[in-house]
Each structure stands twice: as structure tokens, then as C-alpha cells.
């Protein structure tokens, strides 16, 4: 494994290990949950779809489409059991991004899925 001497003088971030800064957004918690992420998702729609597609491609390689069938058919049923307001926010994200609800749910429960 490649280990190196402790780096110094890396800040402010620059050079080959720095890709770019992160954009700021405001999330208004006074809005209905299904509208809170709309402006963010409108800007990131293509990137979200590309990330989900990458997961689908990987899953297809392993499970030959069976897992995706399960995700698209069964995971939307979970969304209403998720705690409020997260369930409504997820529905709003799926609606604006036009990504199937089950796939947005999968992204949001990724942590629990991958702790083994």
C-alpha cells in the first residue's frame, strides 16, 4: 500500500489532489418537505441520474436485472414507512429528478445496505 511522509502546506487546497470547491445551497425547512430539494435537484438532475445508472449497471452485472426489478417494484412500498419528513423529501426528489422512486430510496438507505 502506498504510504507517504506527512504532507505539509497543502492548504489552501490546490494541485492534483484538489478537484474543486463545493457549491452552497440553502434548504428552506419552512417549505413543505416535497418542495425543499427542488432547486438543488433541478441543477443536479443529470448527475443524479448518472450516479443511479452506475449503480444499476453494477447491479445488473451481479444480479442480471433481478435486483433492479426488486428495487423498482418493492422499495417504493417502503417509502411510506420511513419517518416524516424524510419520506416526503424522498418523494419530492424522485418527482423532480424523474428517477424511479425505488432507486431514490435505495440511494437513501445505502448506508444500511453496505455495512456488512
Amino acid at each position, binding site marked *: 500500500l502506498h504510504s507517504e511522509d506527512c504532507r505539509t502546506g497543502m492548504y489552501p487546497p490546490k494541485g492534483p*489532489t484538489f*478537484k474543486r*470547491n463545493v457549491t452552497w445551497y440553502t434548504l428552506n425547512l419552512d417549505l413543505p418537505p416535497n418542495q425543499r430539494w427542488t432547486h438543488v435537484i433541478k441543477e443536479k438532475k443529470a448527475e*443524479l441520474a*448518472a450516479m443511479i445508472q452506475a449503480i444499476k449497471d453494477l447491479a445488473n452485472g451481479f444480479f442480471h436485472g433481478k435486483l433492479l426489478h426488486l428495487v423498482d417494484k418493492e422499495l417504493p412500498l417502503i417509502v411510506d414507512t420511513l419517518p416524516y419528513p424524510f419520506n416526503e423529501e424522498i418523494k419530492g426528489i424522485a418527482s423532480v429528478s424523474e428517477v424511479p422512486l425505488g432507486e431514490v430510496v435505495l*440511494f437513501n438507505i445505502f448506508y444500511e445496505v453496505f*455495512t456488512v
Partner: protein
Amino acid sequence: CTSVVTEDVNGNIYHARNLDFGLFMGWDRKNQTWTLTEKLKPLVVNVDLKRNNRTVFKSTSFAGYVGILTGIKPREFTLTMNERFNIDGGYVGILEWILGLRDGMWMSFLTRKVLENATSYEDARNQLALTKLLAPAYFILGGNQTGQGCVITRSRIDTLDVWEINMKLGRWYVLETNYDHWEKPFFLDDRRTPAMKCMNKITQANITLPTIYDVLSTKPVLNKLTTYTALMEVSTGRLESYIRDCPSPCTPW
């Protein structure tokens, strides 16, 4: 992931992290990158969550992901979460949830709830330690006063350990990767030793957000899975995040 909470000689608390994600999620041979890690990078956003036009907390997150993995409640506390791999993992919690046993909390929803509602470091620590979870985890929490920094090691049901900054013992930082701190890390994934070596080399007298960024920029603490680096200073409410790259030669995790 690598998270660290540290206190300088003046009692200022700093909290920083590398978020590493996407292991075994497709390897791009040509570019020598993890496919999912690269797809996640354009989704990284900083979010200022406001109510009544006032900041409740700030977070570095992924667009489309409503939970929180990195957040700061200005002047109160900072919080990050690292994955804890265990055979009694989240899939058991998901199965229980599907079967109708729904007394556990989804990990990233809990961190968001804590950032929204907890009123102090102690309140946050109690909520993170006492809530039943769907998956094991490490919660790394920083406060706004001397000695307020800890790693909470959680199983789905119990709190296994709370490891705190303790100036009397000379413990001026706590650093967590993805292994219980009282056990040795997996020999093929030891980011803890190089990170601690760099922290100790910097010394408490010279610890600042820029020097912590140096630690998080040192391979293999920085690796092919590193998506972003976040730096937080609770007293000022400062949150800075940077998308990272790790050009070869660089460890795959």
C-alpha cells in the same frame, strides 16, 4: 472514512473528515478510479438548512440524499458519521423494518434529527448513544468547550464505547477510521496509524484547520475512495469542503 476532533492549546475545537465511499463499486481500469466514487463527486453539495430565515445547521451532503453524514450546528456542536462494518449489519435492520419491527432509526436520518433538534453537545451525545439503530456506526461528535470531543461506537442496539478527548491524559484529539479504536485496524486498511503519526508530528501547539487538511491529504488517509474533505470550526460555524482526487500511485482504499 477518517474523522478527527481535536482541541488546540487555546481550547478551540476543530472537526474534520475525509468521506470515502464506493469500495468494490466498479473499477475503472483506464482512469484507475472507483466508478461510484467518481459518480458521487459531482453530487457533493454544501447545504445551509434554514428555518425562519435563520441557519439551523450546515452540512456537506450529496444531492438526492436527505440524511446527513457531515454537519455543524454553529456554536453548539459538529457531527460526522463513519461506517462500522459488522456481520450484524444494516441488512438485518432493514429486514426487521420490512417485517414491521420499526423501533430502530435509520442512521443518516438520526444524524439529521440530532443536528436539527439537539440543543447542546451533551444532548447530541445522549441522543446518538441511546437511540436504537438499524445499522452499526461510529458517531464522531465535537462540542464548543474544552474536552468536548468523542467517538461513539455503536452496535445496532447498544453503545459499546464513548472515547473522549481528555487533556489530563494528554489526549488532545480522537481519530476514527472504520475500526473499533481499542482494536488494531485490518492490516490492509490501516489509515489510523499514518493519520495519528501526522497528528502527533504537528503537535497540539500547531493544530489548525490547514494543518488538519495536511493530515487528510496524506496517502493513504487520502485514497482512491476519498470523495470530499470537510473542515469545521464550531466557534465560528465555519464549514469548508473540497472535492478530492488521488492521482496514482495511490492506495485503492
